[in-house]
């Protein structure tokens, strides 16, 4: 059965949390848990979602949930899954929710280990493109040009000098049973991928772009729009990796104006035309690759 607003589990599992108004990450966690249901065990490392959801005695997960160490999302998921299996319990989902830093920086070793072992877990990276919980510092998923509190935009350096790490293909290179990219701007696509992940044996990885209005410098009501726009302008893409093959889920017929997408965010407001040209060139190169290698 196709999953949509009408068929989705009505229960809210992530509720009463203290995330900023308009938080994209909390939307990703909320929706994923509604897809996976009450027998989900959520593992969240130190980061935004654990900071806003787990302050005793305000505990905002209605399902089983635990905070892991920052580096230990995947390894704790492994232990949770193995521990339950050892007790003969099978009908549950061990699901991790880690941010971009928790996934692509400090947690990448444990994630790689879990994929290598093909542990039966779902790992969801909610990517808000910087260490937001500590006050907007650069991570390896911060895009080129973005201003963060550790990549200031000044006369000499204009924000982050490095492109976004390609987590999706890094994960796919392990030969993982299922990996996907998603955006909270295309929530039905995200829901479908979470549901698909829940039906596959082995390790599953979903990289969902989840804008942070505070860190990106957009109004709180713009989160979903900007998450849609980043896909429409080609700076993010919706794809899957399964059975050793890449598949593109959504091909914009024409890209919307990437410059416009960038300029409406205060983190990119300092960019010069040449910077935007660099970003667009990188985008086009990426799409050449996608067109060649993705079905």
């Amino acid at each position, binding site marked *: 059965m196709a999953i949509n607003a009408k068929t989705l589990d009505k229960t809210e599992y992530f509720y009463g949390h203290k995330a900023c108004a308009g938080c994209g990450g909390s939307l990703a966690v909320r929706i994923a848990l509604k897809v996976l249901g*009450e*027998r989900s*065990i959520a*593992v969240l490392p130190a980061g935004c979602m*654990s*900071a806003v959801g*787990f*302050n*005793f*005695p305000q*505990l905002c*997960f*209605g*399902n*089983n*949930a*635990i*905070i*892991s*160490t920052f*580096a*230990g999302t*995947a*390894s*704790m*998921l*492994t*232990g*949770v*899954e*193995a*521990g*339950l*299996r*050892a*007790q003969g*319990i099978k009908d*549950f989902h061990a699901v991790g929710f880690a941010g971009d830093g928790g996934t692509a920086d400090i947690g990448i*070793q*444990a994630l*790689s*280990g879990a994929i*290598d*072992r093909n542990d039966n877990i779902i790992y969801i990276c909610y990517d808000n493109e910087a260490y937001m919980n500590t006050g907007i510092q650069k991570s390896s998923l911060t895009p080129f040009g973005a201003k963060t509190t550790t990549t200031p935009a000044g006369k000499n350096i204009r924000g982050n000098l490095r492109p976004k790490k390609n987590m999706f293909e890094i994960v796919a290179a392990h030969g993982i049973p299922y990996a996907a990219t998603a955006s909270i701007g295309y929530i039905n696509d995200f829901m479908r991928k979470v549901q698909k992940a829940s039906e596959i044996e082995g390790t599953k990885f979903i990289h969902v772009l989840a804008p942070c209005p505070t860190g990106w410098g957009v109004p709180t009501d713009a989160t979903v729009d900007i998450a849609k726009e980043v896909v429409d302008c080609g700076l993010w893409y919706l794809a899957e990796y399964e059975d050793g093959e890449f598949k593109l889920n959504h091909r914009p017929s024409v890209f919307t104006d990437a410059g416009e997408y960038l300029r409406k965010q205060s983190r990119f407001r300092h960019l010069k035309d040449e910077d935007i040209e660099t970003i667009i060139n990188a985008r086009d190169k990426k799409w050449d690759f996608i067109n060649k290698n993705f079905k």
Partner: protein
Amino acid sequence: MAKKFLSGNEAFAYGVSLARPQVISAYPITPQTIVVEKLSEFVEDGSLKAEFIHVESEHSALSCAMGASSVGARAFTATSSQGLLYMAECLTYAAGGRFPIVMMNANRSTALPWNIYGDQRDSLSQLDSGWIQAYAENAQEALDLALMSFYIAEHKRVSTPFMANLDGFVLTHTYEVVDIPTQDKADEFLPGYETENKLDLENPRNLAFSAGPEHNTVFKYKEHLGLLNSKKAIEEAEAKFSKIFGRQYSGLVEKYKTDDAEYILITVGSISGLVKEVVDGLRASGRKVGLLRLRYLRPLPNEEIADALKGAKAAAVLEKDISFGNEGTVYTNVNSALHKAKINIPNSNYIGGLGGKNISAEEIKSIFDDMEKGKSAVKFLGIGGAFDGN
């Protein structure tokens, strides 16, 4: 029971296997590796039903064990030295979460300089992480400790992780004849793990949360009580153990000929075997000497130390550790116990065995000779350099 010729590592692995852990997270490091190798063989031959997880680091080893413990599974891991330090974040995490994981640590020197041999600087640097810390003297004690450690850690009033320490190479790789209990008897000793400190699919829980300034002290107070409660649990475990297996242990300390001793040497771990021989020799020539072996450093045996030393003229601590800029950590702890009991006797500190350096019977004898001079000092065995603490 079966008798086998086993190394300390192998003996410990047999003890762990008899405890029926449900999840084992394994990562190699010298001189611990044989423990997880042996356990993997038990899993392979079907004698142990456990999920054996090949983790990719020590941090993940303990993180995985915490995940397993958080769903109510009995979990084991093992490490040493650099590995213990690499997982340090998870040590306080496991203790704060009150996850009764058992971990064997093969005591080994810490870099730099690189060195794979035994000293106790690794575990002693982690005394404050909230784990029960025990130190075995020989392979039989290692096996028995493995079995007892689960009982103590998982005790309802304790619920605290347990680090069982074996001196690297000297104990981990030295072979002795060891009695291996039968599985039936082991099962009679150790019940399955039951806890409410877990994620529960029928009754959802939120675990390992934050607690702000207003509640934090209460959590830490309770964590402290849990570790203190292990004293009673250790007594209980040893009484039950002796009843079922016939081998007796002496709680937090072992007193060897200390009752009438004027000069008492305090040690930790496998060096105690040699000290006992020296004590016997000196006793034969009429000298009133004894050994106090600290079997546990957390909980610290404050009363037991004071009780053993109350009639002595002088004491000395021989340890494989140095807290740079101060003195040996065991010495600091012993002095604290003496001070609280108002026992004011000369007590010296001998730093020895660093990076696996052999400690000779002659050196131990010279420590007893030194004690009779009645002065306190901190000395490096074989180097000298008496520091008076200033």
